[in-house]
Every structure is written in C-alpha cells, then in structure tokens.
C-alpha cells in the first residue's frame, strides 16, 4: 500500500474548544459497545461514545491519550472526527 494511504487526519473537538488535530496511523475509541480500533481507510462510520479514553498513535509512533465523555466519532473520506461534550487535556499513555 502506498505510504500516504496509511495515515488519516484526526481531529478531536470538545464542546468548548478544539483539543487536538494531526495525522495518525491508528486510533482507539471507547465506543458504547466496547473499544473500537480505527485504521486508515476504514469504511464511513458514525459511532456513539459514552465515556472512556481515546488513544491516538501518531505517524512517528508516539501515543496521545484523551479522557472523553459523551459524544460521537465520525469517520469519512479518511478523516476522523471525535466530537465530545467534555475532554481532558492530553494525558500520558501507559503501556497496556
């Protein structure tokens, strides 16, 4: 697969501010029915998120974690948007 195809645009927004945006190789979101991993070129999807932790893996392999609450995740044309009511600032990701 071409290198540029293996990344996606990620935007995380809370109701009162934009939180993070950048390019990522994979994102894990706390869907209402269990964790869900999203890779580039996923099919278009709209997922309800209750509360939990969004983990973004950037192109250089660094990980970013965000505690989110109550919202949804939309993926369309290789763009992932996480829109939530409340979102913590970036927190350290511990290896799981």
């Amino acid at each position, binding site marked *: 697969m071409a290198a540029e195809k293996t990344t996606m645009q990620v935007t995380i927004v809370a*109701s009162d501010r*934009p939180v993070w945006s950048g390019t990522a190789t994979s994102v894990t979101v706390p869907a209402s*029915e269990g964790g869900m991993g999203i890779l580039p070129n996923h099919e278009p999807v*709209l997922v309800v998120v209750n509360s939990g932790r969004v983990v973004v893996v950037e192109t250089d392999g660094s990980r970013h974690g965000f505690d989110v609450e109550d919202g949804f995740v939309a993926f369309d044309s290789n763009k992932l948007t996480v*829109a939530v009511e409340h979102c913590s600032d970036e927190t350290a990701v511990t290896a799981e």
Partner: protein
Amino acid sequence: MASQLAFKSRIASTESLAKIFNAQEMIASSHIAKARKVALDAKPYSDAISDAVQALVAHTHITHPIFKGEPGNPRVAVLALTSDRGMAGAYTSSIIRETEGLLARLDGEGKQPVLYVYGRRGVTYYKYRSRQIADTWEGDTDKPGAEVAEKISKALLEAYMKPADQGGVSELYIVFTEFVNMVVQKVRVLRMLPVELVETEQQSENETAPLYSFEPSTEEVLDAVLPKYIQSRIHECLLTSAASETACRQNAMHTATDNARNLIADLTRKLNSSRQASITQELTEIIGSAEALNKKEE
C-alpha cells in the same frame, strides 16, 4: 442663576460618573475579544455535529420526532435570551419587544405559547408583570459556557419530547440577538424545533455512495447525535447573543461617556459665566459706591 457651589458639585459628580462609564466601556471592549475567542473555540464542535447530521440526513431515511412536531398540540415554547445586567442600552428591551410581538402572533394563530427566559433582566421583567414562565436560567449571559447550553437544551428537549397531555410542546422558537458587527446587532426569531430538513442536491448524488455504518444502531446514533445538534445550535445562539450584549454595552457606555463630557463642558461654561457675572456685579457695586463717596466729598 444657580450658585457657583451647586455648579461645582454637579461638575464633580458628573466627572465621577464619566469615569465609571469610561471604565465600563473599557471592560466591555476587553470582554468582546474574549467572547469572540469563545465563539471561535466552540465552532469546530458545532461544525463536526452539523457534518454528522448532514451525513445522517444523506444516508438514512430519518423518521425522528425532532424532525416532525406533534401537529395536534397547540402548545409552543418560546425562549427569550436577555442579559443579566443592565447598562447595555436597548439590548434587553428590544428582545422583550420582539418576544411580546411573537407571543401575540402565536396567540393569534391559536397557539398557546409557553415562555422560557434566560437572563436576570428578562426574568425580573416578566416576574414583575406576574407572567407565567415555564423555566428560567440566570448567570453568565455575557460568557455562556457549554454547561448553561446543556441545561437549557435539556429542559427544552424534555418539554418537546413529552406528549401533549403531559404539558409537552410541539415547537420551539428562540428570540436572540445576532452579532453582525460591533455597531450592528439584530434581534432575530428562529424556529429551532422541529428541525427543518434541508434536502441538499448532494443527497441525490450520494444515492450510490457507500452507506455509512452506524454503531450501535441507527436509532441510537440518532438519539445521541440529534439532541447534541440542538444543544450546539442553542449554544451558538447564546454565544452570538453574548457578543451582542457586550457590543451593546460598549456602545451604550461610549455614548454615556460622551454625554457626560458634553454635560461637564456645558456646566463649566455656566459656572464660568456665573462667576463672571458675580465679579462684574461686585465691580459695579464698588465703582458705584466709590462714585457716591466722591460726589459726597464734592
């Protein structure tokens, strides 16, 4: 002519008022920058929600109560966004005038308006006139956070979702002030609920596009996203109203400062002429009496 002492004390009090107005004006102009930042910060979220709703509209055949009210229910909700504090010129009074007009029009259409008010000024106005208010919120009208928007939209959606016999409403109107620019703010009435579906051309083009998948289910996604859509729209209204309020306050305070300065100039002129008059009078008296004395000596 009033005494010089009276002029002096009026000038002193007008000067201190002018100082207060000037300070208020400066506070308002610093708040404007903040209000603009808050509005900009909230924009990505409301854009994301609008996109999601657009996707929902384009990819599903929606039948959700948010898109069609209860036709048989005459009760409609009216939300008026006023300010917490005065000193903002005609801001609250023009909202109230528009609200009264809307209520009269709805009454004329045979509907029963139910009033909701945000902002202390509006609440006291209607309480003083013992109007029935379904619910009120106060605080932070000049910098409304997401929490206030959440509270308001929750209460209104609850009223909207209730059936007619339990006191539910079939429509929701919002009276708010749109921030056009620093000088122009427009009072607008918006029908928020039921949401009008905008059938875009995109929809027909997208018939063959790959279908979105919804998790856990289409209904649950609708139930989760649509209330948020309403909430973010209400939040938008609150934010533009807050910016308008601050701009109104700045304009009003600017005019007040100017008026105070004119008044001071006017009073100073009167004070000077009164002082001059008294000096002239004293001189005439002295000259008159001196001449009288001279005449006696002759």
